[in-house]
């Protein structure tokens, strides 16, 4: 009844006991829920070596089942209507506003259609390419699909793969960084000249004393 997580990974560095434990946890958190698709989360974690949770696509970090906020147990009648409408989005192109999904989840269903999402469960990596690398909900410069592959939060502007963010932001903030560099260069040139001045005074004193 409970699947034993199989870990096959080329870089042992990232898969340690803690991560191992996280797998068990995440299986536990999502597998309970018949309607959620933990395959994608498992893939994201395996691909990135980072721990993730259901909040990648769902409103609630523990998935859609339960009675917390954004979970099925706490929906109002209007929200249920929305949920049922969202469930009919089998083909792509339908605007989705599901109360249990976050914006990334909604967009996934809209772009792929539910049928395709269900199909991709067998091959979770395809979800990223099917979704495409254009949309960037949090505007941090890393496309949502890439954030899914990286195991980072697609809805948080201040969360992403550190190196990718560095590359994006160094371009984004280039004027600021260049201006700061100019300021620092001027400052350092001034300091160097000051040292030069004191050196000259030292030489002048030496000449005088001889």
């Amino acid at each position, binding site marked *: 009844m409970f699947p034993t997580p199989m870990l096959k990974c080329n870089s*042992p560095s990232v898969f340690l006991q803690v991560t191992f434990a996280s797998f068990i946890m995440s299986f536990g958190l999502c597998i309970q829920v018949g309607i959620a698709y933990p395959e994608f989360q498992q893939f994201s974690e395996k691909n990135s070596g980072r*721990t993730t949770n259901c909040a990648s696509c769902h409103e609630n970090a523990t998935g859609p089942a339960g009675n917390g906020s954004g979970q099925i147990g706490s929906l109002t009648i209007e929200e249920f209507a929305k949920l049922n409408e969202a469930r009919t989005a089998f083909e792509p192109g339908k605007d989705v506003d599901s109360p249990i999904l976050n914006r990334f989840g909604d967009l996934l269903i809209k772009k792929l259609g539910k049928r395709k999402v269900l199909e991709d469960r067998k091959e979770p990596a395809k979800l990223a390419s099917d979704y495409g690398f254009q949309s960037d909900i949090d505007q941090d410069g890393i496309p949502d699909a890439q954030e899914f592959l990286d*195991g*980072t939060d697609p809805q948080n502007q*201040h969360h992403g793969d550190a190196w990718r963010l560095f590359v994006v*932001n160094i371009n984004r903030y280039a004027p600021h960084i260049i201006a700061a560099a100019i300021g620092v260069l001027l400052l350092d040139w001034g300091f160097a000249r000051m040292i030069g001045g004191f050196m000259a005074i030292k030489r002048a004193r030496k000449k005088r004393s001889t």
Partner: protein
Amino acid sequence: MSSGHPRTSKNLLSFIADRFPVDKLNFHHMVEEKRVPIHRMSWGYYTGGLTALFFLIQVVTGLFLLFYYQPTVSDANISVEFISHHVAGGALIRNMHAWSSSCMIFSAIVHLLTAFAMKAFDKPREITWISGVLLLLITFAFGFTGYLLPWNQIAVNATKVGLQSVEDLSQCLPPFLAGLPRVLRETFQGEASIGQSTLGRFYAMHIVLLPLAIASLLGLHLLCVQLHGMSKGVDKETDKSERFFPFFIFKDLFIWAIVFLGLFTVSICVPFDSFLPYPLLAPYDPLAATPPGIKPEWYFYFVYYPLEMLPFPVIVALSNILMAVLFLTPWIFKGTSRRTLQTLALSATAYLIVMTLFGEQIVHFVKP
């Protein structure tokens, strides 16, 4: 009155008189006359100044953060989020605070190691050394208390683990002291489980108590440094040296400017939170299970990973020995040559690097 008493007090007096020579306590001696030796270890003289730069940045950015941070369990997390996502310049300032804190601890450790390797603790600089060790401990305390303030999953759970470790000390104590760690933990925690009282206490420590402590100790530390001048640093006496003012101080400023540029670039480009998995950044929920991957900040790895591998009492014993060695260094290594000290410092550095970078793998290797 025993005859021993006057002699002890006389010894103490002369000890203090040697460390604080009144005739040298003047601007002329401490600034104008001070010289800095030039040799292959000279770069070590800049590490202290860098730590000071990071501290200054911490003070300034910390003051900025105070404008918006709210130290209550209901609002702490959202106020931090508010700073990052809505306040103009807030993300930069917060990142700078986080990056600079790590840099400060890093440079403080490097400073300690170089000072050790250069035998900068030798007579009459014992007080400089001890105040320096205390400053490092305070810096760690800054890191520990500041970690809790965003009140997210990693913050609260890591603090929980940290405080629980304090209580675990009781297994290593004699029975009549066994209750003490619990009292200690509850004093820091303020209530039965970690909550509003803990946050309030950590906040008070982080923004008032520790800054006061660090400011006064830093004053003493700098006074001692200026009073006794730079230690010679190498075994072989060099005749080359430069004046502290203006040459050394301007070189110091030169380096500060470059380091500031680096810090600014990193802070504006890489959010510090990016290194953590995002489930750990969610607001703390007292009713949920602890999420996986709870770890302290990287600068505690050198004690955290051994803690994972070795029995707790062993770690306690080792850290007690380390503390004793650190505080007694000026007397233990009195006669040791700088060559030996350098080897020791290098091996300590190697340990710190290996444990910080590969600790996780080592734990995995030892305990599969």
